[in-house]
C-alpha cells in the first residue's frame, strides 16, 4: 500500500485533532527539517477566537513558515498552514484555500471531516491524512474519503493519546495504513512516507 522511500515533493500532509493534539504538534513540528519537501495543513478544534496565538505558538517550534490561512491563499510546498478558528477549510482544484462559515459539522468549525474530504478530492493519492487525540468522532469520515481517493491514513495510537476517542473511532472505521505513537509519527514524516 505505502510508497516506500523518499517523500515525493508535492505531497500534502493534513493533520486533524482536538483535545490533546496541540501537545503532539509541539513535539512533531521541531522534528521536521526545513526546507520541508511537502506541505502540512493543520485543522484543530479550537477556541472560537480570532487571535493568532496558536499560529504564533506553533511557529515558535519550527523554522518552517507557519501561516494561518486567509481566503484564497495558495498552498505551497515547504509551508505549514493552520485552519483559522470559526471557519471550515476547503481546498480548490487550483490549490488555493477556500474558507466557509456554514453550519458546524460534528459540533465543530473548522470540521476535520470537511477539510479532509475536500483535500482528498483535490490531492487523491498525494495526500496523507493524520488524525490525533480528541474527544469527538470528527475526522473519521474524512479519513475514509482520503483512503477512497487513494491517499494514506495515519492514526495516533489511542493509548498514547491524551483523549483516545477520536483515534479509536478512526481505527474502527477507516482501516488506517499506520497506527503510530508520537515517535513513530515523527519517524514516518521525517524519513519517508
Amino acid at each position, binding site marked *: 500500500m505505502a510508497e516506500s522511500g523518499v517523500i515525493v515533493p508535492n505531497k500534502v500532509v493534513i493533520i486533524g485533532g482536538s483535545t490533546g493534539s496541540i501537545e503532539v504538534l509541539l513535539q512533531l513540528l521541531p522534528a521536521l527539517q526545513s526546507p520541508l519537501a511537502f506541505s502540512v495543513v493543520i485543522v484543530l478544534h479550537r477556541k472560537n477566537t*480570532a487571535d493568532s496565538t496558536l499560529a504564533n505558538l506553533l511557529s515558535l517550534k519550527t523554522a518552517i513558515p507557519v501561516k494561518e*490561512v*486567509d*481566503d*484564497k491563499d495558495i498552498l505551497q510546498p515547504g509551508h505549514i498552514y493552520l485552519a*483559522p478558528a*470559526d*471557519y*471550515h477549510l*476547503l*481546498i*480548490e*482544484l487550483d490549490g488555493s484555500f*477556500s*474558507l*466557509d*462559515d*456554514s*453550519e458546524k459539522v460534528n459540533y465543530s468549525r473548522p470540521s476535520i471531516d*470537511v477539510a479532509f*474530504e*475536500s483535500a482528498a*478530492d*483535490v490531492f487523491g493519492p498525494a495526500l496523507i491524512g493524520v488524525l490525533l487525540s480528541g474527544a469527538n468522532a470528527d475526522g473519521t469520515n474524512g479519513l475514509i474519503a482520503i483512503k477512497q481517493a487513494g491517499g494514506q491514513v495515519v492514526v495516533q495510537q489511542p493509548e498514547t493519546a491524551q483523549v483516545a476517542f477520536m483515534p479509536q473511532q478512526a481505527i474502527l472505521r477507516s482501516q488506517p495504513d499506520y497506527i503510530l505513537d508520537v515517535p513513530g509519527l515523527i519517524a514516518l514524516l521525517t524519513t519517508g512516507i
Partner: protein
Amino acid sequence: MIEEEEVDLLLNDLVDLYGYDFTHYARASLKRRINRLWSLDRFPSFAELRYRVRSDSDYLKRFVEELTVNVTEMFRDPLFYKALRTEVLTALAAKPFIRVWHAGCSTGEEVFSMAILLKEANLLHKSLLYATDLNPEVLEAARNGIFAMGPMKQYSENYILSGGIHDFSIYYTAQYGYVKFDEELTRKMVFSTHNLVSDRSFNEFDLILCRNVLIYFDKALQERVFTLFDESLGPLSFLALGAKETIKFSSIQAKYKQIGSEKLWRKVG
C-alpha cells in the same frame, strides 16, 4: 458525491432557467453545499436532483437558499464592532446623513448590530441602513426583526466585548422562545433583493459592510464586487470585510487605506 461535470450541468441550468449565476462561486464550498442538499433531500440519483431543480420552482427557492450560506450572528468579532464605534462612527458623526449598505445581509443579525451601534452613538435618527441579499426569504425574516432566544446570551457577551454599556435585553422583547427587536431599529432599515453577481450599484454610501460573503466567490467575482463597491462608496467612506477577507491584490486597493488591524478600509483616493 457529485462529479465536477454534474456541478457544471446544475449551474448552467440555474443560469438558463432562472438567471441565478453561481458559476463564479468558490467551487469547493459550492460542491459541498450541493452534496449536502443531495443527501438531506434524499435524492436517489443526480438525474432526479437535477430534474427537481429544473421542474419545481418551489424547490428551486429551497435549493438557492441552501446553496448559499445563511449563517450569521450579532456582534460577531466584537473587536471589529469596537473599531466601528471608535474609528468609523466618530468619523461619520459630523455628516448630515449617514447611508450604510449591508451587502449579503442574510437574516439581518449584523444589520441590527449596526443599528444598535448607531443608536448608542446618537446617530440612528439621521442614518439609513440598506440591507440586501439575493434570497427573498432571508430578507423577509430580517424585516420582521424576530430572532430565536437561544443565541441571545452569546450575542449579549459579544455586545459587551464590543464596548456596549447597556443590558443587551433593553433592545428586544422576549416571548415564547423568540425575541423581537425594537421597531425604532427596524424603522431605519430598508430591505431589498440585490445579487452581487449581476446587479449594479444603486446608491452612494458612507459605509459598506460585506462580511464573510466574498469567501464564497472566486477571484474574478471578488474583483467585480470590489469594483461595484468602489462605485458605491463616496469620498472618505468606509468598507468593512470579514476577518479572513482582504482588498489586497485587488484593483481598488491603491485607493484605500486600512484602519488599524481590523478588516476596515477608508477610501482616500
